[in-house]
């Protein structure tokens, strides 16, 4: 309080406690600095050899991952400018489901290079216009780099799917992609609808079961429920299924009521009529041909008793989403009330059985024959963190499948595309006359971040790799990228590393947009946080 003086200028307009930063030094460079810090965190996770981060979130849950979307999500980034990068990453994650790391790291690199330009004396607006031209040109060049013949693909051909999925999965679980990709591809192809564009990511489920190892993973046509069946019938085949969302029990009134009994007979018969009623209901279900009852809520003991009597298997699925998926798998219609179902409301499953996997009893609902809409990838691993990370890899793979259903074009991976973009863009920049020439050149230079990081993460000499990449590309071998396994430059068509065009397109676009947005800011005004200052009991005592 000693520092306190009469407010002036903008200070006088705003409430006490706000923060106000403006100008190149205070706002722009600080923002860039924050974004740089963020991208430094994510950068080391880029690519197949990227390192994992151990993030412990505010609920004390441990994440060990190299998935950038998860990392930034759990990091709880506070800085407003850095948040823009996080949002760009999230947008990418939602649009494509993969490539979030490329977005954030590339945006960070763009901003880092912008800082140099600012220090050189360029005005941010010139940089922005240069970057905008840069990204426009990039998109043009990217179009030229698309592998010819890749725009037509059969989304049901496993080999073609795996070819496009490999890079995405390998960047999450390097060395395991040969095991994971076929599994993911198989699951995706199984549930792919007639019109591939309608592919629903939710139809590929992941069941994580602790224990075993990756080689125990498998794909199941149908669902895996992590619970046991309720009754004693544990296995059934070729069964019709009745689904009741409201629970299987004697119906009770919602309103509080009392049963009035007036005579002794009534009292004696009370229990009997109730029993008879339940039996009648269960019998009606059994008569309809259903062999399995699925309940969305509690199963009454009385009802269970009669189900056993009529040899009906009883399953309880308390999650509404799970129940909906179950209905989708079996084609059943969920009935609200326990009553006799119509034949067309019954579902069908090839087999339902309870199996023990890794000490956990799970119910497996299979539907081998056609019309199957849900597939499950059963993942096995020795720790929860590994399983979570595998799940993210599968998610990325499935999202890639979704993306390739819409646009199957591919570009060379393993940094071959980036180097080519950098080279072509640099040539283009020389033709520009204005000051934005510098910005475009820097934009081109930013692409070098990708091979540099890939090489660094793999423990290789980055400068050597980049220079040899440039040499190869200049010689006309535009498909030469880094082979991380051997640490040399190789034609990607021999190593089969391809990226989806859309992934790259959106990642670069979002990154450039985010970078421009951050650069455009010249003032930050932060209002005082609502709720007043933190409670401080010592406040009164100071007045001495």
């Amino acid at each position, binding site marked *: 309080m000693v520092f306190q003086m009469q407010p002036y200028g903008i200070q006088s307009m705003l409430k006490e406690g706000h923060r106000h930063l403006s100008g190149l030094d205070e706002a722009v460079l*600080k923002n860039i600095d924050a974004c740089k810090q963020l991208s430094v965190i994510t950068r080391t996770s880029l690519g197949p050899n990227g390192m994992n981060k151990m993030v412990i979130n505010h609920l004390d849950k441990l994440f060990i991952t190299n998935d950038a979307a998860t990392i930034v999500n759990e990091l709880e980034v506070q800085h407003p400018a850095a948040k823009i990068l996080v949002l760009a990453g999230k947008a990418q994650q939602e649009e494509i489901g993969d490539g979030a790391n490329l977005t954030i790291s590339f945006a960070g690199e763009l901003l880092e290079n912008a800082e140099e330009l600012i220090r050189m004396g360029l005005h941010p607006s010139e940089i922005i216009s240069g970057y905008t031209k840069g990204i426009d040109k990039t998109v043009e060049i990217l179009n030229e780099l698309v592998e010819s013949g890749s725009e037509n693909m059969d989304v049901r051909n496993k080999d073609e799917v795996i070819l496009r999925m490999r890079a995405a999965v390998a960047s999450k679980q390097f060395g395991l992609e040969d095991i994971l990709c076929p599994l993911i591809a198989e699951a995706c192809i199984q549930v792919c609808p007639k019109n591939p564009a309608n592919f629903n990511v939710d139809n590929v489920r992941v069941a994580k079961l602790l224990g075993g190892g990756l080689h125990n993973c498998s794909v199941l046509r149908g669902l895996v429920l992590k619970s046991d069946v309720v009754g004693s019938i544990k296995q059934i085949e070729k069964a019709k299924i009745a689904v009741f969302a409201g629970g299987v029990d004697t119906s009770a009134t919602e309103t509080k009521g009392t049963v009035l009994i007036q005579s002794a007979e009534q009292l004696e018969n009370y229990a009997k009529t109730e029993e008879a009623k339940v039996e009648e209901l269960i019998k009606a279900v059994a008569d309809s041909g259903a062999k399995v009852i699925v309940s969305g809520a509690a199963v009454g003991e009385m009802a269970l008793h009669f189900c056993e009597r009529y040899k009906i298997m009883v399953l309880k699925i308390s999650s509404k989403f799970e129940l909906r998926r179950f209905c989708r798998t079996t084609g059943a219609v969920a009935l609200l009330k326990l009553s006799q179902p119509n034949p067309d409301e019954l579902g069908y499953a090839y087999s339902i059985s309870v199996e*023990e996997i890794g000490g956990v009893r799970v119910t497996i609902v299979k539907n081998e024959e056609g019309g199957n809409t849900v597939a499950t990838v059963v993942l096995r691993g020795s720790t929860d963190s590994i399983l979570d990370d595998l799940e993210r890899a599968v998610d990325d793979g499935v999202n890639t499948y979704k993306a390739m259903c819409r646009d199957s074009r591919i570009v060379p991976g393993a940094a071959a595309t980036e180097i080519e973009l950098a080279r072509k863009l640099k040539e283009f920049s020389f033709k520009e006359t204005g000051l934005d020439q510098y910005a475009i050149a820097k934009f081109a230079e930013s692409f070098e971040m990708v091979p540099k990081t890939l090489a660094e993460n793999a423990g290789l000499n980055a400068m050597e790799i980049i220079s040899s990449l440039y040499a190869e590309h200049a010689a006309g071998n535009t498909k030469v990228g880094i082979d991380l396994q051997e640490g040399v430059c190789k034609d990607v068509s021999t190593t089969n590393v391809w990226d989806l065009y859309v992934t790259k397109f959106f990642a670069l676009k979002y990154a450039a947009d985010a970078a421009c947005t951050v650069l455009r800011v010249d003032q930050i005004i932060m209002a005082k946080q609502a709720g007043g200052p933190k409670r401080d009991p010592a406040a009164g005592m100071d007045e001495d």
Partner: protein
Amino acid sequence: MTTMLQPQIILLKEGTDTSQGKAQLVSNINACTVVADAVRTTLGPRGMDKLIHDDKGNTTISNDGATIMKLLDIVHPASKVLVDIAKSQDSEVGDGTTTVVLLAGEFLKEAKPFIEDGVHPQNLIRSYRTASYLAINRIKELAVSIEGKSLEEKKGLLAKCAATTLSSKLIGGEKEFFASMVVDAVIAIGNDDRLNLIGIKKVPGGNMRDSFLVNGVAFKKTFSYAGFEQQPKKFLSPKILLLNIELELKSEKENAEIRLSDPLQYQSIVDAEWNIIYDKLDKCVQSGAKIVLSRLAIGDLATQYFADRDIFCAGRVTEEDLQRVAAATGGTVQTTVNNIVDEVLGSCEVFEEKQVGNERFNIFSGCPSALTATIVLRGGADQFIEEAERSLHDAIMIVRRALKNSTVVAGGGAIDMEISRYLRQHARTIAGKSQLFINSYAKALEVIPRQLSDNAGFDATDVLNKLRQKHALPSGEGALYGVDINTGGILDSFANFVWEPSVVKINAINAATEAACLILSVDETVKNPKSESAQGEAAASAMGRGRGGAAFRGRGRGMRRR
């Protein structure tokens, strides 16, 4: 006043703790090594036990790796991974939990010097993965199948596996006795192997040798009412009725209310209530059952009613036991006494109530479907029986796995030495850094025989050298040699029946490698501050301190206010 100062760049929330780089990795490795050291001494037949005293005042004595890891209450994020793999080994195989932690710890320890020397962790990870792949294939090659043997022979073989597991436990002295018991129990439950069909009942008192196996179900006598003493306590091939209802005089429904206009009717209502219960009891008797069990209470009225008709009854049987009785006797649990048909009744050859220690036990034996078994454990102290139960659980799991996968390998560190030798040999064929890493992986595997002899008080270096020499024999005859825990030398483990199911080793190596790779692949740790609820307490204590400071002229408090 903060506006006056140059604002700091705050990227993350206040209180977030980040660490990164080599130092962070090394500290993670150190944390894991510490955890591995904690369980190190429990490995093997001569391993020592740990006494763990938890915050609730419970004392546990155990040498089961998974139990110890669970009770240790580890908070370090990296070490938590080790707890996870111990758990996973426990659920997947049941035994070898100490092994898995020890291996993971050793892999990391071997990796540490390389990390410190600046090797990129990814190189290490790749080599470790290759090594584990090779090791697992080698185990599969070496495994001996016990498929296609007669039941008797198989039993003997399974008992050997169980004995190997049990030898490292508290009840190792009686391993043959328990091993055959465990094998009988597992064979009894047959193909539908649900673990909860094997019951383990603990009765303090007596000695270990007094433990016995019931080929059926046994449970402690439940709480009983007057009249119970008059009931017969032994039946030969009785019918058994299993119920899930209360046989007691009580209101039918909570929400039913009786309103009477005529006081004369009152007696009729009372009679009606009695009628209802008598009706129920009557139906039970008419079903022909000689034994009535219920999950809920059987009141004194019912107890006496049954006693008059020479029927045995027990109320408040635990759900678990009732399910086991149902599985064993072939009956089903009924929720109503109306129309009880014969097929829902169970039966068994002999039922009797027996004195075990100072408890009375209800024992059903000679059951038709015989899908259950119960082991009644006797022993001195509570902790002792607890540990014995855990050991038996491990042995049961091992036998189940051996039955399912039916391949075994030589124990006593023999298989570990053999893989180690194999990997070293393989490493020589590799050019490049990988050679070093696979070599160190091979070295890490030697920790098992080393620790076995260390724990037994032998000179580990001496034993290891002998073993290495044997395993290196070009004829390959030494491949089955392991540590001889009795003499301190080496012996052919396989010929001496120190056997382990191969799945235990495969899973252990797999899990340990995965965990080690996971920890090596972390290059940054970020710890976010806990959310409001969790922080409440921390803030309160900080506040208390703050106030204490404020009493001294309230210095320092001004800084905290915005």
